[in-house]
């Protein structure tokens, strides 16, 4: 049990780091997107310098859209990290089937779904980078990702059942 606890504690530390990094990157993306307006000419010049054949305006728009997509993705990522930390916290406290966990896992399921759906705008943005060697090869659409959404919703149900059983057990004299 001690070793498992150590793994869980380590996971919490990793998740906390990811939580902070996620917020930091989201903030950086917002700043980068905003700065791209005053620095538009410089950015355009650098792109033309490296890829003379590309449509610079489309590329710059694509970069901004990607940055905003990154910010949008930070929201579900934050939900996943924070809820997972909370769930692990209850496991460490021996309260695995505490009733809020079902809600947390369901929130993780919705967040995973949101991340999967972000593939759609990503596929729309990628053509902006035509001529820069960026291609859609289908690798961004992952079956594993969609499966994880289903697994999360199933687990949420399992947690709800577990919480109900636990409440019954606690109320049994």
């Amino acid at each position, binding site marked *: 049990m001690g070793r498992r606890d150590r793994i869980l504690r380590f996971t919490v530390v990793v998740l906390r780091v990811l939580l902070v990094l996620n917020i930091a990157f989201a903030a950086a993306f917002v700043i980068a997107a905003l700065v791209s307006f005053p620095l538009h000419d410089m950015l355009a010049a650098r792109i033309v310098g490296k890829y003379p054949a590309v449509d610079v305006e489309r590329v710059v728009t694509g970069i901004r859209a990607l940055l905003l997509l990154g910010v949008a993705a930070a929201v579900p990522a934050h939900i996943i990290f924070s809820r997972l930390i909370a769930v692990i916290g209850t496991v460490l406290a021996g309260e695995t089937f505490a009733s809020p966990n079902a809600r947390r896992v369901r929130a993780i399921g919705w967040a995973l779904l949101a991340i999967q759906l972000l593939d759609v705008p990503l596929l729309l943005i990628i053509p902006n980078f035509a001529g820069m060697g960026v291609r859609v090869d289908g690798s961004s659409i992952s079956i594993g990702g969609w499966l994880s959404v289903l697994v999360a919703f199933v687990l949420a149900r399992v947690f709800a059942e577990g919480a109900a059983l636990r409440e019954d057990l606690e109320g*049994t004299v």
Partner: protein
Amino acid sequence: MAVLVRLDEVLQARRMTLTELAQAVDITLANLSILKTGKARAIRFTTLDAICRVLECQPGDILVHGPGEVEEDED
């Protein structure tokens, strides 16, 4: 809850306190309090057997079904 616990009445009739019952049936006072106040969600047959044995009564003396709605749990 439609099932009412009449442990208090039976205890009074036997001139027994909840603490004495707890000691006699070897169930914690906390658990018996949960039962007495109607907050229990279930009662084990072993618990019922022990209480009936000590109080010399029938399960029907302790548990009665009355009007009232059964609480539905939310998922």
